[in-house]
């Protein structure tokens, strides 16, 4: 019986280049001179160091603990001495440095005490999650989301489907392919544990049809398991993207701003499942992963089991070195990976591929032509956006319009840029626009805060003014009362004067009659101070 598959809009078929790194079994790695372990290898808060410079550590020993809910601890990937804790260059698109713990291996690669779980089925899901959390396991597919959070369905009580993502749709990358071929049993172990933690009804293992060996290997490994099925999906980029894969396998669309949990699905990379198996059954935290070292510049492309923290140039050297000039060094695949600015950056938990590309592998960027609105980008978009409209709005900084055209639904898979006949770096515009909007939001928050502050100050001032005014009014009415009294006195005085002057006049008259003159006197009442004089102070 063939399982029904759904489809998503768009998608592309870039050249695969996968065969080059699948000729050899997974290679062991020589210990490097130095291991550089960034404290931030996952989505969320960086870990906090619990060791000091000069301290001796064993392989698998906790050297930095998780600092929040969305965070993951970091373990020493080999035994040795912590030579320093501080800023060091890390693989990140920004090219900036970040806090790292540097370990000089002693060459013994001696494990700390490992505590395997005897019977995980006796443990409550929360206890299992805790072990997985303490093992520092994050999604090994490339995003690096702390796994224990995914395994916590929370209020979404019933998880119907657990999806194991073995799609690996990016060109060049083969680490999951090789893992499935060689270590299917580990993946099976992981599936059992994760399923137990989630109480998922069924499990689907999705593998693209360009990996027949992995498909067979997985099918053999899970034979006999209840409601576990290996599903062959057609090769199409970006099918490995979680929401697209959920759609293909279940027909359900994860709502925007939603999680797979919302549709009763949990999606885990096959590498993560293997790591979970090791954490539970072997008591090993995440200290190594499988990395594809490939590209025409590499003498012998292959997959290696690599200790986290190994410098990438060291890996290339162990693959018979750079036989051609490395034009671009990319961590991840050519579609979504990012170009590194120096070759000695460490492998981190999310490093699935080190692509040492020659100029021929990744042809130089061609001159950008004007958009002819051909719509190839819209046809390729797996989210059904209109990239050309988004491009106009991003370019002209019409950010409201860009948001109206659902800029934030863009998963930055690069399919639109890939197909654009005008070579427009569409994704780059979208990233800029998103950044601009975030900046604007922050600015807005800041200005909102400033406005609130200003308003409350204004209120306070007004209140104070009103109080002053009230006081002044009080004073004024008191003064007025006084003035009125004064005026009354003055009137009385004036009347007196009038009376006096009349009397004087009478006297004068009398004097005149007597033949003598007196100077007269004119006078007004004292006026109270005028209102506006006071106000202007």
């Amino acid at each position, binding site marked *: 019986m063939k399982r029904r598959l759904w489809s998503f809009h768009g998608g592309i078929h870039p050249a695969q280049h996968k065969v080059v790194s699948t000729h050899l079994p997974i290679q062991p790695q020589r210990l490097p001179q130095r291991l550089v372990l960034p404290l931030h290898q996952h989505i969320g808060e960086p870990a906090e160091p619990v060791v000091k410079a000069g301290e001796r550590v064993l392989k698998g020993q906790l050297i930095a603990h998780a600092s929040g809910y969305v965070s993951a601890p970091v373990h020493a990937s080999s035994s040795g001495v912590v030579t320093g804790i501080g800023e060091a260059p890390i693989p990140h698109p920004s090219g900036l440095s970040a806090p790292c713990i540097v370990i000089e291996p002693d060459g013994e690669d001696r494990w700390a005490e490992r505590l395997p779980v005897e019977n995980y089925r006796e443990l409550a899901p929360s206890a299992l999650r805790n072990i997985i959390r303490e093992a520092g396991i994050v999604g090994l597919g490339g995003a690096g989301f702390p796994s224990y959070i995914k395994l916590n369905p929370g209020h979404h009580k019933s998880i119907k489907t657990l999806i194991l993502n073995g799609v690996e749709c990016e060109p060049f990358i083969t680490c999951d392919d090789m893992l499935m071929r060689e270590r299917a049993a580990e993946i099976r172990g992981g599936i059992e544990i994760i399923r137990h933690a989630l109480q998922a009804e069924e499990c689907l293992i999705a593998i693209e049809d360009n990996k027949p060996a992995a498909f067979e290997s997985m099918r053999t490994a899970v034979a006999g398991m209840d409601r576990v099925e290996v599903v062959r999906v057609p090769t199409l980029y970006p099918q490995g993207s979680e929401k697209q894969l959920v759609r293909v396998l279940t027909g359900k669309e994860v709502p925007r701003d939603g999680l797979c949990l919302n549709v009763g699905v949990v999606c885990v990379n096959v590498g993560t499942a293997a790591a979970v198996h090791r954490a539970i059954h072997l008591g090993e935290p995440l200290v190594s992963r499988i990395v594809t070292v490939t590209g025409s510049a590499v003498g012998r492309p292959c997959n290696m089991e690599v200790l986290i923290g190994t410098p990438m140039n060291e890996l290339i050297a162990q693959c018979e070195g750079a036989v051609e000039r490395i034009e671009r060094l990319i961590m991840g695949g050519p579609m979504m990976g990012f170009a590194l600015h120096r070759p000695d950056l460490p492998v981190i938990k999310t490093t699935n591929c080190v692509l040492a590309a020659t100029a021929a592998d990744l042809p130089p960027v061609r001159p950008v032509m004007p958009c002819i609105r051909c719509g190839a980008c819209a046809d390729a978009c797996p989210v059904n956006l209109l990239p050309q409209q988004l491009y106009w709005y991003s370019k002209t900084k019409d950010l409201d319009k860009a948001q109206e055209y659902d800029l934030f639904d863009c998963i930055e898979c690069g399919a639109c840029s890939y*197909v654009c006949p005008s070579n427009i770096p569409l994704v780059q515009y979208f990233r800029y626009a998103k950044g601009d909007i975030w900046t604007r939001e922050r600015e807005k928050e800041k200005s909102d805060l400033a406005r609130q502050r200003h308003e409350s100050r204004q209120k306070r001032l007004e209140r104070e003014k009103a109080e002053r005014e009230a006081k002044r009014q009080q004073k004024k009415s008191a003064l007025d009362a006084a003035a009125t009294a004064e005026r009354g006195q003055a009137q009385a005085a004036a009347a007196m004067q009038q009376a006096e002057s009349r009397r004087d006049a009478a006297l004068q008259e009398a004097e005149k009659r007597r033949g003598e003159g007196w100077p007269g006197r004119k006078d007004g009442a004292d006026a109270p101070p005028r209102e506006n004089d006071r106000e202007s102070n």
Partner: protein
Amino acid sequence: MPLTTSTSPHVRSPASVTEVMLQVLLALVPGIGIYIWFFGWGLVINIVIAACAALVAESAMLMIRKRPLRQYLGDCSALVTAVLLALALPPLSPWWITVIGVFFAIVVAKQLYGGLGFNPFNPAMVGYVVLLVSFPVQMTSWLPISTFSSYDMSFLEVAAFIFGGQLPPGLTFDALTEATPLDTLKNNLGQGNTVTEIRAQLGLDDVTSLLLSVIPIFGAIGGKGWEWVNAGFLLGGLWLIYRRIIGWHIPVAMLGSLALISGAFALYDPEHYASPMFHLFSGAVMLGAFFIATDPVTAAASAPGRLAYGAGIGILLYVIRVWGGYPDSIAFSVLLMNMVVPIIDDRFKPRVFGHGRK
């Protein structure tokens, strides 16, 4: 070791604007071949004149606008405009007609708006409409198909007429030209004749048409020769869809709406309204549907928008043909719908993944 840094994606498909334009030109070949077979060498000369004029105009404008000449001339978009315009002109158009049309198309309709990608109106159609309203006599003088012509002009004779206005001795221009089937239909219907009478008058009962009508939908439908020219463009258009150079939405919507509306009227009164087949296979319908309306720059952006845009063109085409002042109206329909594109783009957006159905 200096490393190049670039943003993802680091790989690109080999598709380019130049390739898109060249594929369009290639797809025009069957239609052009059949056209030349029926209407003689005039089109070849027109295409050459138009192409040269377009390259000159484009280069001059690029120089004035200080744009890299090689990069923008190399996109071949000016050539596509030139060939489409040449196809819209009567095959015996004097050279200056072609040059003026191309000048308007390239300089005014395209470069003054900002060049490739920025023109709101289809440049070739702007050029054509400018000519149609300025030089109506020259623009409506069509040759009959060569098998019915009283005189078969040689390449040199055609060239002599196009460049110097010299006709072969003993011939007059009026004797050479003939109204197109669409013209005839329109004028005769205006004079109160029925469709049946007009079909007879168009020579649709003669031997060639009988031979052609062995294939049921061809022959005796669009008017002598025209259905074959249209079939040629249809073939090229289907190939473009197959190669994914154009989408199916615009041609299907345009032809579908034209067929529906003409079918409805033909059913209502077959003596006064021509059949859908006549409408679909006459004039520049197939050229318009697959090569002109699909010009991505001036068409609507989203798939549903393109359906609306194409349907609008089909309806306008029929309305202007039947009740308007021009027998064929691809250019007007397309230009009118070009005006509506911003509204269509605003109204018709595809449902984004993960958003609830509205």
